[in-house]
C-alpha cells in the first residue's frame, strides 16, 4: 500500500486554509471553531484563516508556508473546486510543491450558502475539511498530459452569431466549417428591417458579412445541412458527420437566375416572410440569400401518386391544371399512362382514397381532371420510342394488361405483337364495360394511338387454336399472357341452364358486340360488384321496365363503387339486400319465370374481412321475373389456350406467376392481370402489364429481374400534413346528361368545363410540395436541376466547435386569450418585422389583412415571457424591439401606438435614451399585463375593433383600448430541437432549456464539454450587440486553443496494475472510449491512458482491484468517506 510521500521528508505536513469569502462563508460558519478543529487533525501543521484565499495575499500564505517547509500538502476550505481548484493548484505549484498535493473543501456552495443553521453549517464544514485532510495525505504527485488540438473549427448555425464567429476565426487564418440547416445563412437578423437602438438597417450590417462568409477562402460554407453526429476523434478532438440535405439543385451550376421560380406552378407560404407572403416550391428564401442558390422543397411522393398502382403523378397534372397549363398537364399524364382517357373514365381511382383533402372535406376528382385534359386534346399522340431494338414480343390478350405491357415494351424499343381472340381489341374494356360509361370511340382512339407508335394487334386470333404458345415461344423473344378472366362463375343453383338466364359478362359482351336486345320487363341482377351495376344499367337501357339487384349482404358490404351504386339507383334500379338465390324457376318453354330466394343475415367476418352472410332458415320467398343476370365473378378462359400449356396453375384456376417478376414456370413466358389475380380493376391490370414489361426488358438484357423492385406498386406515404385552417370546399360534381337520356348508350358524364376543372384542381393541397411537373428542369439553362439528388453525409475532423443555433420565437397560439390565429389582425412581432421590411411581403407598408392602414395599434409585451405558465425568464429583447416597432409603425402609419408592459427593461448603452425618444414621439405606455384581446364591443367606438383589456396599474383602473392591429411581443425560446442538439454535442441545457454555460460568470461561453463553445441566443435570450460580442468571445476561445496547439488534461486517468490483473476482461466492454484492450501474450487487460477520459467506471468494476484511477484511488476515497463521517 502507498503512503503519503511528499518530496521533502517522511511524514506529510498538511496546511489547512479556511476562507471567509468576505461574509459569504464567515457569516454562517464559525471560522475560529473550524480552525481549532483543523489543528487537531492528523498531519496538520498549519491551520489558518483568511478573508479571501483566492486573492494574491491569500495564495501567498500558502506559497510561503510551502517554501518555508512548514507544510508539504495543502487543503483550502472555500468555494467550489469547479471555481478555484485550478487557482490553488497553481499556488501550490508556485510554492514549489506538486500541484496535486492539494485538495479543496467546498464550504461555500455546499455549506454556508445552503445551510440555515450556523451550528450545523460549522459541523458540516468541519466534516468536509476532515475529509479533505485525510484525502490529501494520500495524494501523489501527478503530471498533466498534453494533447494536440486540431486546428479546424466547426461553427453550427449561421445566424449573426455564427457568421461573426466564423469570420473572426477565418480572418485569423484558420479553417472554419460553417453549417446552416436553412438554405441560406443570415438567421433571424436577415428578417429584420431596422435594429435598435440606432435604427440602422439590419440588411446593411448583415448582408456584407454574409457575402464575406460566402467568398472567404478559409470558410467552408455548408447550407441546407445538419450535423448528424459528433464522435470523439481522439482524446480531445471531434469527428463530425454532416448531412448535406438534397437541394435537388446543383450548388455549383445554379446561377440563381430565378427563371425556375417563375415557371414553378406550386406556391406555398413563405417561411422567411412568416407566412405573410408566398414562395414557390423551388425557391430562394429572399433575393439576397447566401448562397444565391435555389432549393426545391419536396416532402416526398404525394399520397395519391403512391396509392396508384402505376404511380401516375396526379399532383403534377392537377397543379398544372390549376395554373391553366393544360398542355404541360397532358405531358405529365402521358409520362406514366398510355390509356389516360380510359382511366379518366372507368378507373376505380385508388388515388382518391388517400387524398389528404379527404381529411378536410372530400378527395379531389382526380380521374375527372385527368379525363378533362384528355377530352381537351382528343388528338394527342403518345411519345415515340427513343431507341429501337430488333426483338419481337408476343402478347396474348389486348386488355389493359396487354396494352400496357405492349406500350412499355415499345417505349423500350421492342416490337410487341398482340394476339386478340375477339373481333375488337381492348379485352374487358370493350366487351365487359358498357358504352355509356366508356364510349367505344374512346377505346378505339387509345388503341389507334398505340398502333401509331408501332404496336401490332391481331384481332380474331385466338391463341391455342390459330396459333399455339409453343409457336409463339419459338417465333418471339418473349411472351406475355394477359388473357383476363372472361369465363363466368356459375350460381350453382337449379335452373341455371334455363333460357334468359345470363352471365353478367356474357350479357354485356352480347350487348357490346351485337347491340342492345330485348330482355323482358322484369330483370333480376344477382351480385354486388361493379359488373352487377353495369348489367343492371345496361338492362334498363335494353328496355327492361323493372330491374332489381339482388345481393346477399347489405349496401355497406357492396364491393361496387358507391358513386356507381347511386347512379344506378338514380336511373331506377332497385336493390334487394340480404337476399340469396336458392333456385331458378321456369321451364324450357317459358324460360325463367321466377327466382326463389332465401333471406340472409350478417354473421362473423369472413376472409375478406366482410361479415359473412348466413341464410335464415325457412325464409324462402319467390321473385317473379323475365330474365336473370348473374354477375358473381369470372375465371380465366384457360381452355381457349388449348388444354395443356405446361404453365403452372393455382387452385383458383389462375396462372401461377412470380409475384415480383410475373414470370411463369416457363422461362420467357410471363403472365399478369386478371388471369393471374382473378377479376380486378383496370389500373391493376395495367400495373401487371408494366411489371411484366420491366421483367421482359431485364430478361432480354440478361440482368437480374428481381433487384430493386420494392417500390413498384401501391404503398402509403408516412408523412402527415396539417390541414387545420383549410376552408371546407366540397368536390365539384362532374356534369352528367339528364336522367331522361339515360335510357340510351350515350356517355352519362360529360366531363368538366375548363372553369370547373381549374376550380376543382385548385382544391389540391400540394401534399408533396414540389409536384414533380419538371417545368423548372425544362427552363433551367444551367441544367442545374437534378430530381434524383440524395442526401449526402460528409465527415470532418475539428478541434473546437462553436454552437450558434439561435432561438425560436414563442408560439403565440399558446395564449388563446390574445387571439393570435383567431383574429386576423393580431400579429406576432416577427410578422410585424417582415411588414416593416421594405423587402418584405408588404414592401414595408404596415397593413391590416384587408390592406387598409391601422389607425391604432397595440403592442403587448412579455408574451410568453415572465410568466410562470409559459417561460418565467425575461426575454430581454422584447421591450426594445417593441419600442422599435412602435416607432416604425407610427412613422409609417401615423397610428396611435400603445405599449402594454409589465416593466420597461431597457438596460444597455443608449437604450434608455431610445426609450426617452419614443416617449417624446408620443407613443403611449400602459403599465399592466393584458387580460385579453377581444372583438367584443361594448361601446360604439369599439365596434369592428380589437379591444385590448388591461389593468393600468399606474392609475389602478381596468382599461379597454380599441385598436385595429395588435402586435404580440413574443419572447425567445430555445430551438425546438435544442435538447436533441445538446445531446449530440455532449453539453447540457440550463433552466429554460437554453444551452448551459460552464460558469455564469467565469466561463460564459464555455460548456462542460472541452472545446465546445456557445454563442448567441442558443445560450439565452440576447440582442444583436451582445450576440456579436459573445460570438467574438467564442472565436477567441477557439483561437486560443488552436494557437496554443494543445490542451492539458486533468491527470485523472485510470490505470491497470498489470502484474495484479487476472485478465478477466470485465472492464473492457465498459469503457465507452475503447481505452482498454486485452493483451493476448501478457494475457492481461492494458489501458491506453491516451484514450482514457477518466470516468473510473472500470475501476469501480475491476473485481480484483487491479485497476485504479489517479486522483480517485480507492484509498483516497475511503479516506474521504471516513473523513466526512468522522463527526466530532
Amino acid at each position, binding site marked *: 500500500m502507498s503512503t503519503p510521500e511528499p518530496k521533502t521528508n517522511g511524514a506529510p505536513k498538511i496546511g489547512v486554509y479556511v476562507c471567509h469569502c468576505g461574509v459569504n462563508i464567515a457569516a454562517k460558519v464559525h471560522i475560529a471553531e473550524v480552525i481549532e478543529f483543523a489543528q487537531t487533525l492528523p498531519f496538520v501543521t498549519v491551520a489558518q484563516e483568511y478573508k479571501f484565499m483566492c486573492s494574491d495575499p491569500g495564495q501567498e500564505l500558502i506559497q510561503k508556508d510551502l517554501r518555508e517547509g512548514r507544510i508539504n500538502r495543502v487543503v483550502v476550505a472555500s468555494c467550489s473546486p469547479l471555481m478555484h481548484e485550478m487557482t490553488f493548484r497553481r499556488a501550490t505549484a508556485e510554492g514549489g510543491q506538486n500541484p496535486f498535493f492539494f485538495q479543496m473543501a467546498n464550504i461555500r456552495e455546499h455549506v454556508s450558502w445552503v445551510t440555515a443553521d450556523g451550528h450545523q453549517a460549522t459541523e458540516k464544514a468541519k466534516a468536509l475539511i476532515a475529509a479533505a485532510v485525510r484525502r490529501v495525505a494520500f495524494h501523489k504527485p501527478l503530471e498533466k498530459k498534453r494533447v494536440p488540438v486540431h486546428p479546424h473549427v466547426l461553427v453550427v448555425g449561421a445566424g449573426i452569431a455564427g457568421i461573426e464567429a466564423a469570420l473572426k476565426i477565418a480572418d485569423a487564418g484558420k479553417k472554419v466549417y460553417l453549417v446552416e440547416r436553412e438554405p441560406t445563412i443570415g438567421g433571424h437578423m436577415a428578417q429584420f428591417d431596422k435594429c435598435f437602438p440606432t435604427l440602422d438597417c439590419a440588411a446593411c450590417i448583415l448582408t456584407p458579412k454574409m457575402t464575406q462568409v460566402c467568398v472567404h477562402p478559409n470558410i467552408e460554407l455548408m447550407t441546407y445541412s445538419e450535423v448528424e453526429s459528433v464522435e470523439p476523434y481522439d482524446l480531445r478532438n471531434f469527428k463530425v458527420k454532416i448531412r448535406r440535405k438534397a437541394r435537388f439543385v446543383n450548388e455549383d451550376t445554379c446561377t440563381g437566375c430565378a427563371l425556375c421560380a417563375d415557371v414553378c406552378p406550386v406556391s406555398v407560404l413563405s417561411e422567411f416572410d412568416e407566412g405573410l407572403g408566398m414562395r414557390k416550391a423551388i425557391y430562394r428564401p429572399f433575393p439576397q440569400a447566401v448562397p444565391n442558390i435555389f432549393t426545391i422543397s419536396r416532402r416526398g411522393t404525394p399520397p395519391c401518386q403512391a396509392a396508384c398502382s402505376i404511380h401516375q403523378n396526379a399532383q403534377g397534372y392537377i397543379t398544372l391544371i390549376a395554373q391553366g397549363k393544360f398542355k404541360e398537364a397532358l405531358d405529365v399524364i402521358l409520362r406514366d399512362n398510355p390509356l389516360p382517357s380510359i382511366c379518366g373514365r372507368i378507373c376505380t381511382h385508388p388515388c382518391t382514397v388517400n387524398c389528404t383533402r379527404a381529411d378536410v372535406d372530400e378527395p379531389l376528382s382526380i380521374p375527372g381532371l385527368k379525363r378533362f385534359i384528355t377530352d381537351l386534346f382528343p388528338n394527342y399522340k403518345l411519345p415515340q420510342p427513343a431507341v429501337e431494338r430488333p426483338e419481337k414480343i408476343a402478347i396474348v390478350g389486348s386488355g389493359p394488361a396487354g396494352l400496357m405491357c405492349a406500350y412499355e415494351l415499345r417505349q423500350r424499343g421492342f416490337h410487341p405483337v398482340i394476339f386478340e381472340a375477339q373481333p375488337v381489341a381492348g379485352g374487358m374494356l370493350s366487351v365487359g364495360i358498357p358504352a355509356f360509361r366508356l364510349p367505344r370511340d374512346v377505346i378505339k382512339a387509345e388503341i389507334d394511338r398505340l398502333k401509331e407508335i408501332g404496336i401490332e394487334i391481331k384481332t380474331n386470333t385466338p391463341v391455342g387454336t390459330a396459333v399455339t404458345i409453343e409457336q409463339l415461344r419459338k417465333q418471339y423473344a418473349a411472351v406475355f399472357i394477359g388473357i383476363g378472366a372472361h369465363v363466368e362463375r356459375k350460381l350453382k343453383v337449379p335452373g341455371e341452364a334455363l333460357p334468359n338466364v345470363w352471365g353478367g359478362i356474357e350479357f354485356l359482351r352480347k350487348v357490346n358486340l351485337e347491340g342492345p336486345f330485348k330482355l323482358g320487363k322484369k330483370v333480376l341482377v344477382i351480385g354486388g360488384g361493379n359488373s352487377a351495376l353495369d348489367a343492371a344499367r345496361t338492362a334498363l337501357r335494353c328496355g327492361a321496365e323493372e330491374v332489381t339487384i339482388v345481393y346477399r349482404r347489405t349496401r355497406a358490404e357492396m364491393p361496387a363503387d358507391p358513386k356507381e351504386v347511386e347512379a344506378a339507383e338514380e336511373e331506377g334500379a332497385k336493390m334487394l339486400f340480404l337476399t340469396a338465390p336458392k333456385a331458378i324457376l321456369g321451364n324450357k318453354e317459358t324460360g325463367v319465370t321466377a327466382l326463389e330466394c332465401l333471406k340472409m343475415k350478417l354473421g362473423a367476418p369472413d376472409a375478406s374481412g366482410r361479415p359473412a352472410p348466413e341464410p335464415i332458415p325457412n325464409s324462402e320467398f319467390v321473385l317473379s321475373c323475365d330474365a336473370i343476370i348473374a354477375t358473381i365473378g369470372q375465371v380465366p378462359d384457360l381452355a381457349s389456350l388449348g388444354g395443356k400449356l405446361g404453365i403452372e396453375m393455382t387452385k383458383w384456376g389462375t396462372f401461377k406467376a412470380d409475384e415480383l417478376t410475373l414470370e411463369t414456370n416457363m422461362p420467357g413466358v410471363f403472365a399478369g392481370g386478371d388471369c393471374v389475380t382473378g377479376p380486378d380493376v383496370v389500373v391493376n391490370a395495367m400495373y401487371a402489364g408494366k411489371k411484366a414489361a420491366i421483367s421482359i426488358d431485364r430478361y432480354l438484357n440478361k440482368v437480374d429481374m428481381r433487384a430493386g423492385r420494392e417500390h413498384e406498386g401501391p404503398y402509403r406515404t408516412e408523412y402527415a400534413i396539417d390541414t387545420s385552417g383549410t376552408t371546407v370546399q366540397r368536390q365539384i360534381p362532374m356534369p352528367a346528361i339528364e336522367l331522361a337520356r339515360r335510357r340510351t348508350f350515350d356517355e352519362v358524364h360529360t366531363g368538366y368545363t375548363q372553369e370547373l376543372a381549374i376550380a376543382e384542381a385548385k382544391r389540391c393541397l400540394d401534399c408533396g410540395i414540389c409536384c414533380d411537373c419538371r417545368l423548372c428542369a425544362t427552363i433551367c439553362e444551367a441544367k442545374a436541376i437534378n430530381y434524383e439528388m440524395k442526401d449526402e453525409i460528409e465527415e470532418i475532423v475539428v478541434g473546437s466547435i462553436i454552437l450558434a443555433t439561435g432561438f425560436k420565437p414563442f408560439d403565440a397560439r399558446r395564449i*388563446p*386569450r390574445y*387571439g393570435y390565429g*383567431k383574429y386576423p389582425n393580431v400579429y406576432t412581432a416577427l410578422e410585424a418585422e417582415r411588414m416593416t421590411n421594405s423587402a418584405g411581403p408588404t414592401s414595408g407598408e404596415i397593413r391590416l389583412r384587408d390592406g387598409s392602414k391601422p389607425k391604432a395599434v397595440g403592442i403587448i409585451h412579455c408574451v410568453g415571457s415572465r410568466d410562470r405558465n409559459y417561460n418565467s425568464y425575461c426575454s430581454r429583447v422584447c421591450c426594445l424591439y417593441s419600442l422599435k416597432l412602435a416607432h416604425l409603425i407610427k412613422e409609417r402609419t401615423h397610428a396611435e401606438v400603445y405599449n402594454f408592459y409589465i416593466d420597461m427593461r431597457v438596460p444597455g448603452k443608449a437604450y434608455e435614451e431610445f426609450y426617452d425618444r419614443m416617449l417624446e414621439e408620443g407613443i403611449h405606455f400602459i403599465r399592466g399585463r393584458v387580460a*385579453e384581446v*377581444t*372583438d*367584443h364591443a*361594448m361601446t360604439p367606438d369599439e365596434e369592428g375593433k380589437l379591444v385590448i383589456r388591461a389593468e393600468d396599474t399606474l392609475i389602478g383602473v381596468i382599461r379597454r383600448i380599441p385598436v385595429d392591429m395588435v402586435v404580440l411581443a413574443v419572447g425567445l425560446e430555445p430551438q425546438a430541437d435544442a435538447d436533441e442538439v445538446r445531446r449530440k454535442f455532449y453539453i447540457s441545457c440550463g433552466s429554460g432549456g437554453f444551452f448551459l454555460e460552464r460558469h455564469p460568470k467565469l466561463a460564459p461561453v464555455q460548456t462542460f464539454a472541452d472545446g465546445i463553445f456557445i454563442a448567441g441566443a442558443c445560450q439565452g435570450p440576447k440582442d444583436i450587440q451582445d450576440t456579436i460580442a459573445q460570438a467574438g468571445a467564442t472565436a477567441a476561445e477557439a483561437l486560443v486553443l488552436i494557437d496554443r496547439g494543445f490542451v492539458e488534461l486533468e491527470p485523472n486517468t485510470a490505470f491497470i496494475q498489470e502484474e495484479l490483473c487476472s485478465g478477466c476482461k470485465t472492464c473492457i466492454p465498459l469503457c465507452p472510449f475503447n481505452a482498454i484492450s486485452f493483451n493476448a501474450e501478457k494475457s492481461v487487460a492494458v489501458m491506453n491512458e491516451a484514450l482514457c477520459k477518466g470516468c473510473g467506471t472500470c475501476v469501480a468494476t475491476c473485481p480484483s482491484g487491479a485497476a485504479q484511477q489517479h486522483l480517485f484511488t480507492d484509498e483516497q476515497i475511503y479516506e474521504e468517506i471516513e473523513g466526512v463521517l468522522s463527526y466530532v
Partner: protein
Amino acid sequence: MKYLYYPGCSLKGTNRAYEESVLAAFQALAIEVEELEDWNCCGATAYMAVDEMKSFALAARNLALAERQSRADGPTLMAPCSGCYLVLSKTQHYLEEYSEVSRTIDGALQAARLSYSRKVHVRHPLDILINEVGVQTIAQKVRQPLAGLKVACYYGCQIVRPYAAFDDQVNPTTMDRLIRALGAETVDWPLKTRCCGGSLMGTLQEVGVPLSYILVKEAQKRGADVVATACPLCQFNLECYQDKMSQQFKERLQLPVAYFTQLLGLALGVPERRLGLHRLLIPLPYAAKGRGGAHVHA
C-alpha cells in the same frame, strides 16, 4: 359503460329542466346513467366560502358513496351542475395534493364509517359526450337536425376554470363542436367563459344584472337564436333577468337560454316535454326544425 350521476340541489329544484334533459338525452344515446344513492350537498358556494374543510368533507362523502356504489374500479361520477362539478373536482384534487386535508377528511369519513381511496373520476356531461361518445356517433344519431338554428355556446366559468380538464380555459370549443354536430350553427363570440354574474345576482344585483346583460346583448348582437348553457346558475341568471335588463338598459331583450342537453335531446328527437323545454320562460324559436319532427317520434 354505466355512469354514476350526481344531480345536486339545483337539478332537483329550480333547474329541473337540466336534469330532465340530461337524462332524456343520455337515454336517447343509449348511455346508462345511475343516480348516486343518498347523495348530499356538494359543498358549493356558501360552504366553500366560509369553511373549505367542511365543504371538502361534504364533497368527499359523495365521492366515497360513489366508490361504494359502483362496482367499477375508478368509477365516473357525472356532475352536470358546474358548481358541483367544480367542488367535487377541487376536493379530489386537494385530497390528492394536500396531505393535511387528506388526513382530516379521511378522519371525517371514518367517523361516518366511510372510506375513500381517491378512485372516482369526476366528469361533466359535456366531457363525456365529446370524449367518450364522440361527435361522429352523436351526429349519426341525430334525427332532427337543428338546421338554421344559430346557437351561442356559453360555458360559464366553472367547468373550465381552474381545472381545464377537457377544454381550453379561454376559448373552449367542446360545446360548439357538439352543437354543430346537431346541424345547428354556432356563433363565434369571445364571451364563452365571461362571468354571468353568479351569486352576485342575489347579493349585489346592480353588479350582477349588467354582467348578465353583457352576455345576452353580445349573443343577440351576433345573431344567436338561443344561448346554450352548461350551468344551472348561468341559465337562471341569463334567462330570468332579461326583463330587468330590458328595463335597466332600455331595450327589448327576448333571447331564449337553454341547456345544451335540451338542444341535444331535441336533435335526437326526444319529445319537448321530456326535455323540460316547457319550463323555459322564453320559448325556443321555431327555427329549430327539430320541433316539428320531435312530435313524430313522441
